[in-house]
């Protein structure tokens, strides 16, 4: 698939050469990058890297994007106006592509290895920049295929071959525009923002992305309803005029002989956009861009930062550590998690978006339904037990923490685990668990307790206690079965979307939350369940300590 895309791109070699790009160099750079991707970093202190786990996950990813494509297809099926249908479809595809390019692909675009390997060689900036763009294009092609395949097939069957061919071209244009504009976005950001600010911007976009998907869950069906009820068209929905997806979609309108000024100007706009995208991005990438990326290499925090602890004062984490952990090994696990999660920008960048769901859900809770006064709304939420859901959503954060703590840019520093005489890996891992749990789960529940008790009454206490224990049990299970390596000992993988796994985890949490809601009116049952859950949780922690992770063993290859 990837090789094919590359071949396709190289069909236009003449055009690229005219733009000042060295095609031979371009080809070898991209080919080499693809080869490197195939051979994941063989981290010398990790196990099971060579067993090709990637194949399976690639297919899984493909499947999920296919589902997403089917969801988009729904628009094309239920909306009869072809122009409107393609507008919506392409707008969705464009936004999905750009967002995942910005969030999941930032590591590729900002890869600073180029700095040491390619830049000292006589390769011009345009070629370097273009190779980066094309590389992204190739990486995203799988995702694009999966998302657009259902739509394409449907269009082919019910609209005819000409429409399908146009549709295909539209998809390609949409992708090109997405990739190029994301690149332009990056280079503009890098030009005008400091490195630190730039990383923050990516961070905000990621948060926006999460919220966007979450909103989609909530309002998608309603939007669909309003579209199918009335006879709407692109001409009447002015908001859609702003979307490049609509501009590209105008080709379909031309096919059905709609030659209105609006359609024609949209067509013109989309062609202009494509030209601007291609020429603009090769202009914008300059020495400046590359030198900025070089600065990115300078680690997390280039400024000297003192960790100020006044003489003799014990930092907070040490105090907590004293209370909750016993052996030195457990303390080591506890402190490494506590400290690095607080400092690593890489980690925070990936974690914070997951917290965005909480306030949004909270707001949605109160906005839903048609009751008028505030107290009516509270009564409704209270009666339905929907507030319980938020306790489970907060678990999402801690589960994400477990996904993230094994990964680090500094994964090579993990040699120390293998040189040290670690008797019981379970001891270490239970410290890790306690740290993550206390730092990223308990605070939420305390806040909920403070907010919810005055709002809904004291009866929520047992709900929170039960949710906390179930959260604990889930954490231990995740720890036992999914956390397969030492903290911060694995290389982060390039361009791999975590959004999908997150959606699955969210779904699972929602299910558990739903079960809790079903029984929420029976206070006694909740109390009993709470006690049982806590006992199970505490026993499991004891058990965890005795566990010896086989997967943590040293592998020389």
């Amino acid at each position, binding site marked *: 698939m990837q090789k094919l895309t590359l071949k396709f791109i190289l069909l236009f070699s003449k055009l690229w050469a005219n733009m000042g790009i060295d095609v031979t160099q371009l080809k070898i750079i991209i080919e080499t990058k693809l080869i490197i991707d195939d051979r994941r970093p063989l981290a010398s202190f990790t196990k099971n890297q060579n067993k090709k786990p990637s194949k399976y996950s690639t297919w899984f990813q493909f499947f999920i994007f296919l589902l997403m494509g089917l969801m988009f297809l729904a628009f094309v099926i239920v909306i009869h106006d072809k122009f409107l249908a393609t507008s919506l479809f392409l707008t969705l595809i464009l936004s999905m592509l750009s967002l995942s390019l910005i969030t999941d692909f930032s590591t590729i675009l900002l890869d600073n290895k180029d700095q040491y390997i390619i830049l000292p060689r006589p390769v011009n900036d345009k070629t370097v920049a273009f190779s980066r763009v094309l590389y992204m294009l190739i990486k995203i092609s799988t995702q694009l295929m999966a998302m657009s395949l259902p739509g394409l097939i449907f269009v082919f069957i019910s609209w005819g071959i000409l429409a399908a061919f146009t549709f295909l071209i539209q998809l390609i244009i949409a992708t090109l525009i997405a990739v190029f504009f994301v690149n332009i976005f990056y280079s503009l950001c890098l030009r005008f923002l400091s490195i630190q600010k730039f990383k923050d911007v990516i961070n905000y976009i990621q948060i926006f992305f999460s919220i966007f998907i979450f909103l989609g869950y909530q309002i998608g069906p309603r939007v669909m309803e309003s579209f199918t009820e009335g006879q709407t068209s692109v001409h009447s929905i002015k908001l859609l005029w702003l979307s490049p997806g609509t501009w590209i979609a105008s080709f379909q309108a031309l096919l059905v002989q709609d030659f209105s000024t609006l359609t024609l100007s949209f067509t013109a706009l989309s062609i202009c956009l494509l030209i601007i995208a291609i020429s603009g991005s090769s202009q914008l990438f300059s020495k400046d861009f590359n030198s900025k990326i070089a600065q990115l290499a300078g680690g997390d925090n280039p400024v000297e930062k003192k960790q100020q602890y006044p003489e003799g004062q014990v930092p907070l984490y040490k105090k907590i550590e004293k209370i909750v952990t016993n052996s030195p*090994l457990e303390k080591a696990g506890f402190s490494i998690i506590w400290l690095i999660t607080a400092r690593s920008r890489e980690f925070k960048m990936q974690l914070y978006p997951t917290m965005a769901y909480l306030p949004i859900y909270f707001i949605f809770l109160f906005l839903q339904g048609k009751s008028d006064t505030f107290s009516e709304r509270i009564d409704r939420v209270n009666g339905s037990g929907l507030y319980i859901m938020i306790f489970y959503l907060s678990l999402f954060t801690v589960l994400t923490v477990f996904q993230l703590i094994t990964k680090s840019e500094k994964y090579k520093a993990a040699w120390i685990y293998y040189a040290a005489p670690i008797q019981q890996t379970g001891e270490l891992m239970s410290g890790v668990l306690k740290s993550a749990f206390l730092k990223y789960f308990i605070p939420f529940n305390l806040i909920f307790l403070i907010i919810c008790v005055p709002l809904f009454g004291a009866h929520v206490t047992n709900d929170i206690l039960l949710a906390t224990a179930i959260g604990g049990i889930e954490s231990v299970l995740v720890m036992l079965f999914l956390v397969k390596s030492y903290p911060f000992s694995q290389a982060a993988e390039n361009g791999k979307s975590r959004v999908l796994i997150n959606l699955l985890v969210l779904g699972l949490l929602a299910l558990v939350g739903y079960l809790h809601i079903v029984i929420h009116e029976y206070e006694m049952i909740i109390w009993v369940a709470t006690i049982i859950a806590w006992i199970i949780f505490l026993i499991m922690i004891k058990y965890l300590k005795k566990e010896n992770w086989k997967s943590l063993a040293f592998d020389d290859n």
Partner: protein
Amino acid sequence: MELSKPIIKISNLRKSYGFKEILKGINLDIYPGQVIGYIGPNGAGKSTTVKILTGLISDFEGEVMINDIDIKENPLAVKSQIGYVPENAELYDVLTPLEYLDFVGKLYGMEDTLIQQRAQQLLQAFGLKQNINNRMDTFSKGMRQKVLLISGIIHNPQIIVLDEPLSGLDANAVIIVKELISLLAKEGKTIFYCSHMMDVVEKVSDRILLISEGHIIADGTFEQLKTHQSESLEQIFSKLTGKEDGNADASNIISAIR
């Protein structure tokens, strides 16, 4: 010194990766207080030996006894007696040196107060007192290397395995480390020093082991290894590993790009 019991006893050590045999039967007795300079060409089996000694690799043939403990049977007991600083080792640099040492110390099962006390003293001794509460991502390579060296000795190990410990250190720090090595040896610690820097090995070690293609081909003091008075360790090295004619190699390179 030869009368005391060997602290490291390697008998008939073999290790292969697939069909490729890296170590072809190594026999060694190393005594407490010795500074072993372990040298050899790239790919000769140096780092494999080190990985076996430090308990990282356990599927080898032969016997490795450290302080009478069989490393295959009880790798953890061996690990706790060894201080190891790998070549080009990385560390978690968002931590401060004190926090990192605290972490490492605890992995070795040390208690809080002892770690604090030793870490403070060692950091001061290495001239890092000023930076004790700074994150290490602001550190130079030499400063990081010092922290790594400290992390290798903080648990007071019997045996210290150093792999290219001087890389990135400036001249002053090199002097400190060389002195440190001889002081540690006087304390009765055994040092296993791997390096390509022949001039340093020549000076710090009191016994030089030369490994080539999986065999130990030379074993003795620098004086013993010399056949002529004027020879340097570098010359002995290239003579014994069959690369005596270094000049010819270099001129071949020049003719290739001409």
